[in-house]
Structures are given as structure tokens and as C-alpha cells.
């Protein structure tokens, strides 16, 4: 397995280089270093000299990919792409174009994102699996039909509706929790109840339907029939056999979600005023802060690669037949 992990990690290097090139190209197709300077220096009274000074101080006065004025390796290394990218591979995110330490900002902003994402994921998973198993248990009855209809209704409603409706009903009409905001420590709980609840409710529709499909497929297999023939109770059949064998697709879905959880939810964080990572990248794009954009895309890619690797490893844990070669 170790050889497999090392091989996968080595595969990651060209992927990360590719992602970096793509991010760089896309960013500079839309923004020029002059645009970035004007965005940072403001609109009023800014002079060409100030723009040149800003670019020179931040290293944006170099050519993008190729420096024809240099010799040898300098043609490649004395460029914006090289100077801004190379340190990423040792996870040195450096300073934002506004002069702030990106790693420090990420380390501060990841916690509020995780504070929403982790309980939403865990409680949501538990609820979805329970609800899906219930529907499968009562398959072809009014409970199953009602459950599917409820799922379709829940997944047909826009997430914005849940957020605005939830804030209006729970925060404004019933006055049970703050409409938005955030705090640290235990004080954070009152701010997290509503966004976590909304995240869970929003995920019930699609999650439960998907899990129901997986469980239904599993429950029709012969080993399940054998288990029933052995006289096992339906509770044991569902909980021990069906659920366990359905874990691979469930795990695939969950582990792939992990980087997204870390990176935060833009809409939830924006409406609830939660200072997570969801808005960090968007703010950086709006402020044309390339240093943050490349760092966040790089970090997202790394997490995604790690997530996929963990998925593969987790297969071996839930299914002894799987071998990583």
C-alpha cells in the first residue's frame, strides 16, 4: 500500500503543476498587472508612477511566462509565473498582494468553515442514512412513497430559499437564534444552530434519495436474501449487511466532499456572516489578489488529491477484498 500511496503522490505533482498553470493563465487572461495595481491603489488620483512602483515592489513588473531579456534558466525563472508559483510546492503561500500572510489568514478562517461543515456532514449523514434505511425498510409502502415525495420536494427548493426563509422564520419571527453573525468558543453555538440546521435540511432531499437507491440495490442482492433466509431480523439485515456493503459508494461521496467542507460554503457563510474560507477566495477574486487566488486553488487541489487517495485507502478498510496495487 505504501508504494501505491507514494505513486499516487508522485502523480499529484504534474496535476498540481497543471492546475497552477491553468489558474495563472485564467487569472491573467482577465486581469493584467496594471488592473491589479489599480484595484489595490484605488481609483482616485492614482498615477502611472504609483502603478509601476506597486508592480515593481510586488514582482508584477516581470513578464508572465517567458523573459526574453534574460539568459539561460533566467528566461523561465525571472517571470511572474515562476516567482509566484514555485514556493507553493513547499506550501509557502507567502503574502497576499495586500501584504497579509496568507497561511495565517487560512489558519484563522478554516475554523469557522469547519465549525459549520463538520456537524452538518456528520449529523446530515446520520439523518440521511437513517431516513434512507427507513424508506428501504418500508419500501413500496405509503411511508416509502411519502418519503420519496418529501425528498423530491426538499431537493427542488433553492438553497437560498432555505437560508432566507430560515433566517426570517427562526431568527426574525420566532426570535430563537441570531439571524447572522459569529463568535468564538461556546458563544459560537447560537450562531451555528441555524446554518447547520439549514445545511442538514437542504441535504436531506438529495442525500436520502441517493442512499435509498444504493440501499435498495444492495437489498435486492442474494446475500441479503440469504441473510433473511437465515432468520435474521430486518434490523440486523439492514444495519449490518446492507449498510456495510453500501459503504463504498457512500464513502466515495463523503471523502470527495472533504476538501469542499474545508474550503467553506460561500452562500451559507455570506448570508450568515461567518468568517470562513468560503468567502476568502471570492473576496480575493473580486479584489484581484492573485496571491490568494493561486494559494486557495492550489490548496483546494491538494485537498482534493488527498481526499481521493483517502477514498481509495478507505475502500480497503470497508471491503477486505479491495487491494491497492
Amino acid at each position, binding site marked *: 500500500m505504501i508504494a501505491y500511496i507514494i505513486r499516487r503522490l508522485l502523480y499529484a505533482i504534474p496535476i498540481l503543476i497543471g492546475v497552477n498553470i491553468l489558474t495563472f493563465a485564467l487569472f491573467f487572461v*482577465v486581469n493584467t498587472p496594471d*488592473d491589479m495595481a489599480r484595484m489595490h491603489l484605488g481609483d*482616485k488620483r492614482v498615477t502611472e508612477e*504609483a502603478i509601476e512602483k506597486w508592480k515593481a515592489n510586488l514582482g508584477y513588473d516581470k513578464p508572465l511566462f517567458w523573459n526574453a531579456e534574460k539568459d539561460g534558466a533566467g528566461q523561465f525563472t525571472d517571470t511572474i509565473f515562476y516567482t509566484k508559483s514555485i514556493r507553493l510546492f513547499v506550501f509557502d503561500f507567502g503574502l497576499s498582494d495586500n501584504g*497579509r500572510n496568507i497561511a495565517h489568514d487560512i489558519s484563522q478562517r478554516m475554523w469557522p468553515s469547519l465549525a459549520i461543515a463538520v456537524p452538518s456532514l456528520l449529523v446530515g449523514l446520520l439523518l440521511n442514512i437513517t431516513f434512507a434505511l427507513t424508506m428501504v425498510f*418500508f419500501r413500496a409502502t405509503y411511508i416509502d412513497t411519502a418519503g420519496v415525495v418529501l425528498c423530491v420536494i426538499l431537493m427542488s427548493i433553492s438553497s437560498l430559499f432555505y437560508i432566507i426563509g430560515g433566517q426570517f422564520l427562526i431568527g426574525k419571527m420566532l426570535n430563537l437564534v441570531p439571524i*447572522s453573525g459569529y463568535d468564538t468558543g461556546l*458563544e459560537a453555538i*447560537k450562531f451555528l444552530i441555524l446554518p447547520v440546521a439549514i445545511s442538514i435540511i437542504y441535504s436531506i432531499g438529495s442525500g436520502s434519495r441517493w442512499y435509498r437507491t444504493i440501499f435498495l440495490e444492495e437489498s435486492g442482492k442474494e446475500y441479503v436474501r440469504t441473510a433473511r433466509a437465515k432468520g435474521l431480523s430486518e434490523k440486523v439485515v439492514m444495519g449490518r449487511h446492507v449498510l456495510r456493503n453500501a459503504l463504498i459508494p457512500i464513502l466515495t461521496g463523503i471523502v470527495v466532499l472533504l476538501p469542499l467542507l474545508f474550503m467553506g460554503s460561500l452562500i451559507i457563510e455570506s448570508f450568515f*456572516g461567518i468568517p470562513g474560507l468560503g468567502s476568502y477566495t471570492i473576496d480575493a477574486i473580486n479584489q484581484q489578489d492573485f496571491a490568494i487566488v493561486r494559494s486557495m486553488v492550489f490548496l483546494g487541489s491538494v485537498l482534493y488529491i488527498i481526499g481521493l487517495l483517502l477514498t481509495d485507502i478507505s475502500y480497503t478498510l470497508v471491503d477486505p477484498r479491495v487491494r491497492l496495487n
Partner: protein
Amino acid sequence: MPSGLKILLTLLTLGLGACEQAPWNNPYPASESGQPVYYDMFSERPKHLDPVSAYSADEYKFIGQIYEPPLQYHFLKRPYELTTLTAESVPEPMLFDADDERLPADAPADAVDYSVYRVSIKPGIEYQPHPAFARDADGNYRYHALEKSELEGIRELSDFEHHGTRELTAADYVYQIKRMVHPRRYSPIAGVMSKHIVGLPDLKEELKSAPMDLNGYIDLRNHDLEGVQVIDRYTYEIRVNGKYPQFNYWLAMPFFAPMPWEAERFYNQTGMNQRNIVLDWYPIGTGAFMLTENNPNLRMVMERNPNYWGEKYPTEGMPGDREAGLLDDAGKTMPFIDKAVYSLENESIPAWNKFLQGYYDVSAISSDSFDQAVNFNAQGNAELTPQMKRKGINLLKAVTTSSYYLGFNMLDSVVGGDSEQARLLRRAISIAIDYEEFISIFQNGRGIAAQGPLPPGIFGHREGKAGINPYVYDWEEGEPERKSIREARELLAEAGYPNGRNRESGEPLTLYFDTLDRGPDSKAIHNWYIKQLDKLGIRLVVRSTDYNRFREKMRKGNAQMYFWGWNADYPDPENFLFLLYGPNGKVLHGGENSSNYDNSEFDRLFEQMRNMDNDDERQAIIDKMVEIARRDAPWLWGFHPVAYTLHHQWYSNAKPNLMANNTLKYKRIDAQQRERLRAEWNEPVVWPVLTVIGLLVLAILPAIRVYRKREKEAAL
């Protein structure tokens, strides 16, 4: 009640932090209940908190309370008037000719070689407590030569154990002026000030080769600035080229606030930047407040500066101010609040709802909530809705010192130029585009159609019949009335485009309008413009783009018509009329004259007017300039927005002052009343939750029964 439900509700209650009588939905800590804390919001995070770089309202909202330039705007008097802040008096410029001979104050501008502004500051003013000033028992600075090991465990400024202070001196003001041309700082006004302050360009050149440590620190005390000198501990002089009466306005802006050298020495150390402990993030000032929490992704908190020198509330105001209670605190020591909490609100709906719950003391009115807040009565005046009145909410209105205009590129071959044909075309369009309608539809009535470049409240602006633009309006029954579309068509025909077609070629006239794409909302505005020109038979093509491309087009002169705006730096006509000054053209000179308007007579009058004091002679020159601009019509004058602000009944000393940046110290909060009303408005309603839980239990029960039944069934 079932025990499980009891536990759930208990946990919910605990989790909500429902301490004592505090409402469950209170987003603030219970410890702040009943305290004189001011609650407000912000939607755009500040980019800079260093006074040498900050230049936007989002930034001034904070640093205006912390840094103290020598002058400020009088809180109550209108038109806006400069008064002292840390200065002993508003400096009267001393004028000198080329032979260093003193000239009288009314000397003509061309006789003046330079002006000297001597500023004397009040003694005894101290800085906020700050580690940059902390000294050990031997009198050495504790934190000016930090080792790596000493920074271990330091993550924020508040992690430094020791704090100190010192008295404000004239040298601190001089130090800050030098910072404008520091090679590592970006001051937006460095270019402008280099033209005015004697010796600033030389200092800039000198600093380029000055010894700088790895962290960008240059000890500016070792570099002289010819035109700015410390006279004594509390006095300094600024020498300005020629005559520049507007310079005093600059002295009321944070660019000219004091900066102690210790701050730069402290922040520019290895390891500080890695911890984001930088001057751009942690201000250090003498103002009424100091920033104690800087998390622009969540909230900014300012607390009373314990070393504040205790400025007194103004004792004079305008007629009606006393009756409005605005002089109740006259002569009392400010500030009246202990703390100000500004929370980030990205979305308008939650912000508005929290204001209605009493969790914000003031609020602007977004278009989403406008109808809920404001009605227009039969006379067309805005008034609060009954719902707002019931809550005791008050409405404040103020015309902003801003202009939003549609400009013509005067370099364009169709709409630009000085020909009579182009002038008539621009005038016809000026009549056709009905900004009264625009204000009504897209601004909820919050604006006044502009009659020229100067907004109300700025010297030179004329009210009533004398103030209307006679090329676009008639004076009818005491009101300006836009000329008819028939007259616009006649002008268009005279311009060579009868019915919107070129008289010679017969081709329909097509114009191009460059503007910003602000998403789906822009579409309605673009369609409105198309319809306005369609009244003349002119085809309008809207080219909406992102801000980068828009700016590029403007810089290169590739736009034909465009929409833009200007917020005044200071309340002087020069700050608006310079937008039409030829040598300030954007394409040729990189200036702020985006229309590239160039009229020699206008320029001559501008050069005469800009250095004059506000008197009848200046008014007469401004009248001539405005007339020239109206006749040439390089802009459709657009509109001046009217700011609507709501505030709760517990908030007093509320008077809009759109020029002042430091109004937090005047605010007063009746915290007890706020507490009482918040509790009244936010009583938790639990029964619907219990009902839903009950219904869920009822729905689950049959399923449980079926499950149990199935479990007991024998296998077939």
C-alpha cells in the same frame, strides 16, 4: 412534557446562551447588555488602515476615529466648515513672493511664489496605549529590536504584555508627510502633493537610494523635507508652491494625521509581517477610539482610548439644531460611548432584519427594503411607513457631495468636439435622457437631478431659477421643468440628424454607451437608456463590461458615452470643476477629466478660480464656468444622490455630516432604553417548534408500530 423533549429544550436554551433576560437572538455577548456600546455594520472590508494609503469611505469609517489630523469639519455647521481638531487654530496661509517678501492675504495668485501653513498643535495630547511605546526600567524601548524567540506566542498585537504612550508632537505630523513618498508605501495623493509641497519630489528621489532594512524600514527622521519643518515641539510649517487655499481641506484628511516614528520601527521587524502585525492592520493614533479587534471578515471593534485628551462637544450649530436636541451635549467631554462594534454584513436582508430587531443602531435603506421603510406622501415627500413610526425609528436625509453623470468623450468624432453640430447633439441627448425618471425608477426617489457640476452645499451652487440649466430646463411655476422632447428633436435636426438619421447619408445615428456590467440589475438600466434615446430615433448600443476593461477604455479614449461618478474630497468647487479642466484630461494627461473636455476659456477661469477665497468674485467666475460647461454639455449632469439613513430612538446627536470622517465621538446611546425595547421586540416564540416536534413524533409513531409488528411476524 416528555423527558427527551425537556433535555432538548434545555440544551437548546443553554446553547443559545440565553443568559438572564437577554433575548435568545441577541448576537452580542450578554456582558454588553445595558452598556453604552454603538452597533453598526459594514459591507466592504477596509483594504488599508494606514492613513498614508487609505482613501475610501470604508476605510475612513474606522481610521477617522483613531487618527487625528490637525483640522476637522464642524459637526453641526452648514455649509461645511473647517475647525480645529488637534490644531490650536485653523492655519491662515502666509503668502510670499519670489523674494521671500510677505504678501497680503488677498494677494493675486500669480504674485504668490509660495504659501506657508504654520500649524500649532495642542500640548498634552497622548497616543493610545501601544506596545510600540513600551519602555523598560532603563527607558529603552521594549519591542523595537525583537528577537525571533521573543515573538513566540505572539499572534496578535494584544499579545504584547507591555504598553506605553507618549505625547503627540509636531514631528509626528512631519514624519507622516514624509511617508507619502516612502518607496514601500502607496499614497494615492503622493502625486498631487508632490506638485504642491515644496521638496516632496526631491525627498522621493532621495529615499529611493536611502538605506532600508530587510523589512522596509527607513528612519525618515534622518531625511529632511525642505518644505515641511518642525518649528518647535508643538509647531510645524508646511510650505506650498504658489497659492493653494484648498490645502487646509487636505489638513482635515487622515493623510495628514500624525505618525510616531516608533510605530514604523515597531511594525517593521522580522516576524511581524508573518503574523500580520502590520501598521496597515493595527492603527496607532490619538483619537477618541482605538481599534481593539480587527477582523474585517467578522467585525471591527473600537473602544474608548483611555488616553484621549477630551475634546468638547460643539456649542454652536445651525438654526433648529438646539430644538432638535443637537446641542444638548454642548460643551460636554466626548466621546459618549465606550465601544463601537461594526459587524460585517455581506447581504442586505439579514442586516435589515437585525436593524429592525434593534441589533443595529443605524441602517441605510437598501432597495430591497425601501418600500418597507419609506412612503411618499401626496406632496411627493419621503416619510417613514407606519411600521417604522411604531418602532420609533427616525429618518435622516442629506444630499451627498457627489455627482453621478453620463459623460461624452470629447475626443469622439460624433459626440465630441467643439463643433456646433456636436454641441447641439449633446444638448438634444441631455434633454431626452430624463434623469428625474431615472431617479424615480432606479434610485427610489433618492436623488436630485443635477443642473450642473456642483452639488448643493458646495460654494458656487445656485438654488432656484438662477441655478437651473437653461439648455435642458425651463422654470415653470417655481420648479425646473425639463424641456419637451419636441425641442430635443429640433436640436437634433439642427445638429444634422432629423429623426435620428444623418441628413446627408440617411443612415440612422448609432451611439455607443460604455458602462459597467453589475449583473442582472444592470439590464433594466441599460434598456432604460436605450428607450430614452429611442425617443429621438437614435439607436443606442450598450457595451457593458467589467471594471478593468471599462477603465482601460476610458484611459485610451475608446468610449463614446459612459457613466461615472465623483465623490468630493473636500467641499470646494475646485474639487468638482477640475473634472472638466483640460490639462486634467484622462487620455492625454492621465487625469480625472474623463470626458477629455478642453475649453480654453473654461481652463483660464478655472486657473483663476481655484486659488480664490469664497467671495462674490469667485461666485461670478464659477457662474461663468458653469455656463460654459452647460452650453458645451460634455456631461449629462446626471444626479446627486440623497442619502437616507434610519436610526433608532435611543440614538441621539444624529446629524448627517457627509464630509466628516470622525463622527463616532459625537454619538450618544441610551443603552437602557435599547435594552428594554430589544427585550420587548425579541421575545422568543417556542410553541411552533414544539408543535413541529410533536407532529414529527406523531408521524413516526405509526412507522414504529409497523416496524414492531413486522419484527414480531413469523417468517412465511
